[in-house]
């Protein structure tokens, strides 16, 4: 048993955990600021300079609120629902390559927790399990609005997983690998997959919005129809876990979009700079995070620009538009790989 490897991975897991939580916390602040900007308001500016301490204030508020567990609820499932949702959204980050490897005193430090050869499928598996958190939480609340929200969330997730999977199949045909690091390294010299798979990228992006339950697909929690959707009955930090996990999901899906379609931690011309290995690693991590933050801002921009879909429109988009499109995309990619390349 290689204990240094274990230690490396443990350190990396802790760092990623803290960074995910930090980014998610500041994404809540960012969301309110972006919303304020788009609606010509100022946004939160009371706590600290520019309201920068707002996430901390929100967190303290969440913790100190009264915790209510409804009498008619199934208590065990009621508690475990948000936990599952949070856990799965944190688990996804395990296979993402965060940057080039560091070299500290001759010891290679790989910035990827698990270099699985089925990396993308792992993400799929974890995402498909994430729906259980919502379903269990919504059902255990014993509230019809929560149940409706949970049903909406899970049926939406199933429907959009299909076309997401199809768009991934086209990507696999193109890159010949399921391993995320291989896919990222294949895009090293500015040959980003988005240029070869524009349709696949569009489908993947839409599905990512739907999987994150983000507007315009936030029907599971649409407040005008369902009060709070699946988290109607949740209060205090259990509600906080649901809301927080949504931001972590957004962060992770931005990371996945960036590494699948936008070259991950590579950017054109990184080799010509001729940096030392550690410096190159730092730069690559910086580049990757810049791409991630761009996509997080994109998520927010869309949320505050596009109105919510109706539920039948959502289903029609998923089954009638996106699935045929993604099948066509797979066929075109297959034909291209067979006859042209």
């Amino acid at each position, binding site marked *: 048993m290689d204990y240094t490897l274990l230690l490396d991975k443990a350190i990396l897991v802790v760092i990623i955990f803290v960074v995910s939580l930090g980014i998610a916390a500041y994404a809540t602040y960012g969301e309110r600021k972006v919303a304020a900007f788009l609606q010509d308001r100022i946004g939160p500016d009371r706590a600290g300079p520019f309201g920068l301490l707002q996430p901390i204030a929100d967190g303290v508020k969440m913790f100190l609120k009264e915790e209510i567990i409804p009498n008619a609820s199934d208590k065990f499932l009621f508690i475990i629902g948000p936990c599952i949702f949070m856990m799965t959204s944190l688990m996804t980050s395990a296979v993402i390559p965060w940057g080039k490897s560091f070299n500290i005193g001759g010891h290679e430090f790989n910035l990827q927790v698990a270099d699985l050869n*089925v990396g993308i499928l792992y993400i799929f*598996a974890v995402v*498909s399990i994430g729906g259980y958190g919502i379903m269990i939480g919504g059902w255990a609340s014993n509230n019809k609005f929560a149940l409706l929200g949970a049903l909406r969330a899970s049926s939406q997730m199933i429907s959009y997983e299909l076309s997401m999977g199809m768009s991934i199949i086209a990507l696999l045909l193109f890159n010949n690998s399921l391993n995320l690091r291989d896919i990222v390294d294949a895009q090293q010299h500015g040959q980003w997959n988005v240029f070869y798979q524009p349709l696949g990228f569009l489908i993947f992006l839409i599905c990512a919005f739907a999987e994150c339950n983000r507007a315009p697909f936030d029907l599971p929690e649409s407040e005008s129809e369902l009060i709070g959707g699946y988290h109607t009955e949740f209060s205090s930090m259990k509600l906080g876990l649901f809301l927080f996990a949504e931001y972590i999901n957004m962060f992770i899906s931005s990371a996945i979009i960036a590494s699948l379609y936008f070259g991950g931690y590579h950017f054109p011309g990184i080799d010509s700079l001729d940096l030392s290995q550690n410096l190159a690693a730092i730069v690559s991590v910086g580049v990757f995070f810049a791409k991630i933050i761009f996509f997080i801002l994109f998520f927010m921009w869309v949320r505050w620009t596009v109105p919510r879909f109706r539920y039948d429109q959502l289903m029609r988009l998923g089954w009638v538009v996106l699935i045929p499109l993604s099948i066509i995309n797979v066929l075109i990619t297959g034909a291209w790989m067979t006859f042209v390349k």
Partner: protein
Amino acid sequence: MSQLIFFILSSLTIVSALGVLFAKNPMYSVLSLIVCFFTVAGHYIMLNAQFLAIVHLIVYAGAIMVLFLFVVMLLNLNAETEPHKTSKLKFAAVIAGGVLFLTIIASLKAGIPVGYHLPAKSNIGLVEIVGQKLFTDFLLPFEVSSILFLSAMIGSVVLAKKEKR
């Protein structure tokens, strides 16, 4: 180390499988079945079959069990409302289950015992190997089963359309 993991996984598998049978609330049955699938996926990983493990999770835990959960949630089955089977039916079920169990035991007895100590380089469940096997040695069964799936899908669409009129 792997021996310890094997025993933990196996005991979890058995406990969760028993939980499916003995849980009073159908919701808990479904959830323990999901846990059972997870532990089985863990066994696949122990055998270095990562692809099989992940696909198992996606298909069974991720898709099929969601539908199970849907049905349970919508029907709101409870221990009180569930119709009790007659004792004749229960008797028949026990006999049928016992016979099935016997068959499985008998067939496993003839098989090769595969423990937790596997040859280190068993690549049977990796994606390349599975793909190559499927598209060379098992091409016909693979295609036939895909036609089966297609017909099942079309059948369900036809049934759903009929209802509506």
